């Protein structure tokens, strides 16, 4: 009998063109997503005068630099306009399909890929963006790459990779009402650390993961990189197949049925060994928020921020002091006593229809005490939300309803948090200056951001969901 294999082992073997003696493998890439930031790589192609090897497997989006407010057909800021024009020109020149501004399928690359059925189980997917791990939610092996690697994939549709360490996080049990994929992944990062999975690929398993919708799994896999893992993956199952059926670029009819048959075999074998195996009890996970400047600085909402004076490790104490000073929070302060200045709902982490619905469920009939922006993950999601009347709920609560893009997660389209301002955010990184120089970011789920909006401070959303349909 052959040795039991993990899911990643199987996907790796199916894509390995050649393995060198030194252990690096040349992998075939099934999907390559590009965006405005891919200009360095297109520049390298131009330098060499070579074409894109597989334009039919390459898809572009405009997301990082697109405005969420004001005209998108005539972008006021010339630098943003130039970035968008550049991806339009580069994709047109190489016959690469672009979901650009003006296309209703436009949106954030990690939302559009799954939504269009481009992301499928068993595929290898790369993109010049660290949150490419998102696509693992559908059972793909997906990872972020740098500009040189983007150029290499454009030129050859392959990439040299060393097989990652294989790790598994098992979350068993049922989560309490109001607990989402975001809380699960923040709990995982808090447990294993921001480098807990460095050099690795994370497979998520267990009944609580199986119970997650695809939206929840996308959030989970999205933040794998915040634990250091280049890839995160959930084995495909009936939830996956139901999500994919009928999506524009997914196989159709008998082809779909045949694909499902093959996808169903894409599971980790019983007895397969992981280099690291971590277990969490879903029932013990409370709503989680971050207090510091790394996603690992995450605590349940009923906790207090650490006190450096009580930290015996000097390096750790120094880190705590720096993080608290940057965040403008007194040592030992209760999380629920931290007032916020602004909220943001959006990004590749939490901008899908389910995210908008849960935030709207909290906000319905209530008013936000602080300003905020809601940016749907794609223009299609924006339209769907409008059909469901969610935009009215956000607007009535006093929040802005913007167009789709990366927006305030990274701020390069001009959606910035002002210096010193504190933002409750559904995004993925609370790094110093991430949402703008001097900005203070607290990461949490869409429901928790809505709770912060209504109360004006970090707050436990659970009592606010009483009697509401989520």
């Amino acid at each position, binding site marked *: 009998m052959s040795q039991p294999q993990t899911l990643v082992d199987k996907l790796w073997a199916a894509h390995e063109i050649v393995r060198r003696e030194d252990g690096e493998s040349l992998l075939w890439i099934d999907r390559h997503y590009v965006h405005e930031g891919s200009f360095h790589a297109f520049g390298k192609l131009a330098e060499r005068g070579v074409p894109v090897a597989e334009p*039919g497997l390459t898809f572009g989006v405009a997301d990082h*630099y697109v405005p969420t407010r004001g005209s998108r057909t005539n972008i006021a800021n010339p630098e943003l306009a130039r970035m968008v024009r550049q991806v339009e020109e580069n994709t047109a020149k190489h016959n690469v399909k672009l979901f650009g501004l003006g296309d209703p399928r436009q949106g954030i690359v990690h939302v559009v890929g799954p939504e269009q059925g481009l992301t499928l189980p068993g595929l290898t997917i790369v993109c010049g963006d660290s949150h490419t791990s998102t696509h693992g939610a559908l059972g793909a092996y997906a990872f*972020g790459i740098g500009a040189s690697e983007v150029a290499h994939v454009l030129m050859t549709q392959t990439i040299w990779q060393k097989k990652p360490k294989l790790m598994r996080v098992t979350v068993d049990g049922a989560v309490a009402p109001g607990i989402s994929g975001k809380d699960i992944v923040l709990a995982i990062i808090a447990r294993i650390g921001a480098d807990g999975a460095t050099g690795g690929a994370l497979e998520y398993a267990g009944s609580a993961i199986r119970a997650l919708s695809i939206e929840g799994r996308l959030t989970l896999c999205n933040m794998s990189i915040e634990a250091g893992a280049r890839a995160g993956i959930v084995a495909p199952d009936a939830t996956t197949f139901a999500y994919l059926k009928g999506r524009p670029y997914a196989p159709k009819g008998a082809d779909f049925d045949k694909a499902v048959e093959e996808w169903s075999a894409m599971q980790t074998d019983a007895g397969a060994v992981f280099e690291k195996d971590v277990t969490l009890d879903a029932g013990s996970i409370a709503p989680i928020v971050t207090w510091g400047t790394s996603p690992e600085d995450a605590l349940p909402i009923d906790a207090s921020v650490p006190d450096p004076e009580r930290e015996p490790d000097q*390096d750790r104490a120094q880190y705590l002091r720096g993080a608290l000073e940057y965040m403008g929070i007194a040592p030992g302060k209760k999380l629920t006593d931290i007032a916020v200045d602004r909220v943001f709902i959006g990004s590749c982490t939490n901008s899908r229809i389910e995210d908008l619905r849960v935030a709207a469920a909290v906000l319905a009939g209530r008013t936000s005490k602080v300003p905020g922006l809601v940016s749907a993950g794609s223009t299609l999601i924006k339209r769907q939300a409008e059909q469901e009347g969610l935009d009215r709920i956000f607007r009535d609560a006093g929040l802005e309803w913007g167009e789709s893009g990366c927006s305030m997660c990274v701020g390069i389209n001009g959606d910035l948090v002002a210096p010193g301002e504190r933002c409750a955010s559904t995004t993925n990184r609370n790094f110093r200056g991430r949402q703008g120089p001097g900005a203070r970011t607290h990461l949490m789920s869409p429901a928790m951001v809505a709770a912060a909006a209504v109360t004006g401070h970090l707050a436990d959303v659970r009592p606010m969901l009483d009697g509401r349909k989520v």
Partner: protein
Amino acid sequence: MDKFTKLTGVACPINQANLNTDQILPARYLKWTRAMGIGKVLFQDLRFDADGNEKPEFPINKPAWRNAKVVVGARNFGCGSSREAAVYALYDYGVRCVIAPSFGDIFSGNAVQNGLVTAIVTDEEAAEIMETLTRTPDLPVTVDLEQQTIVCGNKTTNFTIDPVRRKRLLNGWDDIALTESFRDRIASFRAADKGKRSWAVPAAGA
């Protein structure tokens, strides 16, 4: 890509865990081309305040460390965003080697593509080198990639680096040329795979 064999130069300690690529190069510079002088804005928000004044307490602003060829960091250096421009910024500033207990995976992959050495030592060794440099800021550090050693004062520390990456850095190799030599293997893989996994091709007429 320039080869790296051995280097002696100024080494700057930056004792911050999880020093992510947003700190190395803030996102607002990502639209810059390399030719615009990306090395000038390395660590921009750590080096300068909102008014553009230098923060004297940030290590690389100190006179002894201003011309750093080596940076010594803490765990998970270069985590976060995949921006290769963070490596361009370090390299164009003049940094040729970063020493740390661990690196973000994408960062270290990007580093090797650009001739920047990522030398892995233990937490204790990194702390010791940083301490030595803090005591004697002018002490040059020698990084020898062939021997995999760091010499700092009278102390020699061995470092690890992926052997594939080491070989590429020593030879200044670039991936593309190597991949081109496998052109036939790629073509035959592609042909066979199309028969086996027809579903892997995006559906037509979408």
